[in-house]
């Protein structure tokens, strides 16, 4: 198969250069997080003195520990529900040729078109009426419902690309529809499960408006809400915010790194396995 030729070497150099451009603003983020308050050097210059004070202060002042746990709960439950519900829904929508399935598919896609601002206030009042304000369930249900169009779109697209022979074989063997889906189709679409999971995880983890709106008044905070606690009326403590952001993105980058391996084993791997 592939060998590491000089051509690969050139590609490697080019890709690293591209990555450096991407990294530059992130360098600034880290740089500011490691600077002491009152450090006079410019935004780009390295700190006069490296300090972990901002991290320590953000951690204790912002209560980031609890917030990380809340964010983890919300994200894991939301993603689990998104993956299961959207994969299940996408399956008949991508397999059944009937008219109702096509209409349902497009009804879900229509959700992609709607601007969030339109639903903001009515949705808040629905959650209020359900008595879910101040609970993580409110945030989770809003997140799962809102993610359905995008996730079903991704799943349905890739499931259609999947040959039907495997399922037909399973069906002939007498497997139930659920069993066929769960043990044949779901493993086969693994790359897209990884993609759905990671993209929704990023979105859920970083979402700020929903948890702020729905958890306000309770003592629960997600990591983003805690980090933005450093934004006041007349200014923001950027050193603390950036330290908080670095703390908050590490879990999600690790999750991505792990899921990435899962993604790249791929269709092919799934079919072979």
């Amino acid at each position, binding site marked *: 198969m592939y060998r590491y030729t000089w051509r690969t070497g050139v590609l490697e150099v080019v890709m690293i250069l591209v990555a450096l451009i991407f990294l530059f603003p992130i360098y600034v983020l880290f740089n500011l997080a490691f600077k002491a308050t*009152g450090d006079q050097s410019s935004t780009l210059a390295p700190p006069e003195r490296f300090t972990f004070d901002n991290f320590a202060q953000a951690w204790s002042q912002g209560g980031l520990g609890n917030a990380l746990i809340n964010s983890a709960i919300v994200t*894991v439950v939301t993603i689990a529900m998104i993956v299961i519900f959207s994969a299940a829904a996408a399956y008949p929508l991508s397999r059944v040729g009937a008219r109702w399935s096509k209409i349902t598919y497009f009804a879900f896609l229509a959700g992609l078109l709607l601007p969030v601002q339109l639903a903001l*206030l009515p949705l808040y009042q629905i959650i*209020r009426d359900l008595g879910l304000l101040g609970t993580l369930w409110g945030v989770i249900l809003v997140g799962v419902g809102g993610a359905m169009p995008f996730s079903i779109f991704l799943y349905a697209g890739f499931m259609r690309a999947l040959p039907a022979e495997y399922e037909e074989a399973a069906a002939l063997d007498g497997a139930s529809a659920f069993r066929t889906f769960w*043990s044949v189709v779901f493993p086969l679409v693994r790359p897209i499960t990884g993609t759905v999971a990671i993209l929704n995880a990023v979105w859920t983890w970083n979402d700020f408006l929903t948890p702020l*709106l729905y958890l306000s*008044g309770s003592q629960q905070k997600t990591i983003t809400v805690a980090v*933005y606690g450093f934004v*006041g009326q007349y200014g923001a403590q950027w050193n603390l915010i950036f330290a908080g952001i670095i703390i908050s993105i590490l879990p999600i980058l690790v999750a991505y790194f792990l899921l990435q391996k899962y993604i790249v084993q791929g269709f092919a791997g799934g079919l072979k396995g």
Partner: protein
Amino acid sequence: MKSAAVLPIAALSVIAVGLVGCSTGGAGGGGDDSTLTISGWSGDETMEAIIAAFEKDNPGVNVEFTGLPWPNILTQINTELVSGTASDVVVVFPGNGNPITAQTLAKGDYLVDLSSQPWVSEFNDANKAVMGADGEILMVANNFTIIPATYNTQALEELGVSAPQTWSEVLDLCTAAKDKGKVAYALGGLAGGTFHYLPYALTATLVDGPNPDFATEQAAGDVTFSDSEWSTAFEQYTEMLDAGCFTTDTLGTSLEIAQEQVAKGDAVGIVTVSNHISDIEGYAPEGTTFETAAFPATDDPSETILPVGLGAGYGVNAKGNVELAKKFIDFYMSEEGLNIALDAGSIFPTVPVEGFEPIPALAGVAEQVQSDRTAAFPDQTWPNSNVNQVYMDQVQKLLGGQTSIADALAAMDSAYAE
């Protein structure tokens, strides 16, 4: 292998669902007699200190404080008030101009009338006018926001000048600063910056100075932006721009960069709200000191008027725990509450407090704040939020040379008339 990957996800979600089940929290609003909920600013240490003292004075009372960040606090509190889920005490701004100002909220009876509270008599009519509507008092603030010119003292010394007292001295400062490769006034022209404050400083002297009733007359339709000294104010603003008084490429300069410029002495001064001074001090090298002066618009220093407005304060949710909330507001405005605020922060109190000393940087304007040579911020009496929006857009267009003064004022007039 296939299902192996699914298992951890399923297991994790089972655990997590269990955890979610355990966690419940009450949303704001209502509550028993001994619990008070407050929605305020995130990271507001002053408020936290006041709350602690209030709890100590009232044994058995439990205060739950929710800190909200700018600018989401606007949407948040508005949504909660409209939906009947707001805290008992909420942040409210004076006047008009955003979704949680006293006059905007007056339309919906969301806030309790506080006009019979003891501290009301301490405020003058101009202040009371922006604290509510139709004779009702719907909010109160313990702090004034001032718009002085803040100078880097060392930068002034380097130029061998003192803070300008007249318009000519302002222009001289621009020249002197330019000769030393500095700018006279840092100006953040990017959204969220400082560009809209300097015209307020100019109109205080040019518009409100000669005609203290300008706002009332404008509301009655007797005067407009276009046929007033607002045009002179905009002319002087653009004159400063053309004379190179401001940060170059000001429209691309953010608040933080403008603050840093004056903190580090690259700019000599800045015209912005007094609440920014502590941020500027934070950016400054050790040993840097700052001083303030009212920003002049004419060549007679005695004509200079200082813009002083009520800051953001608090109101009482009509659907909340009203009695306890009123008690808290009274405490917030009491001698004890004010002293806590003075100790914890650098506020300029709205009512007289014995032994009050302003922070050193504000010493230059302290006397004038308490005199009658002040004027309210014009935006607090504008009839709708859109005037403010149009004003901001037009000032940016003036700075970018995309509109004329006449057109800018005409646009503001038509927004005012809506």
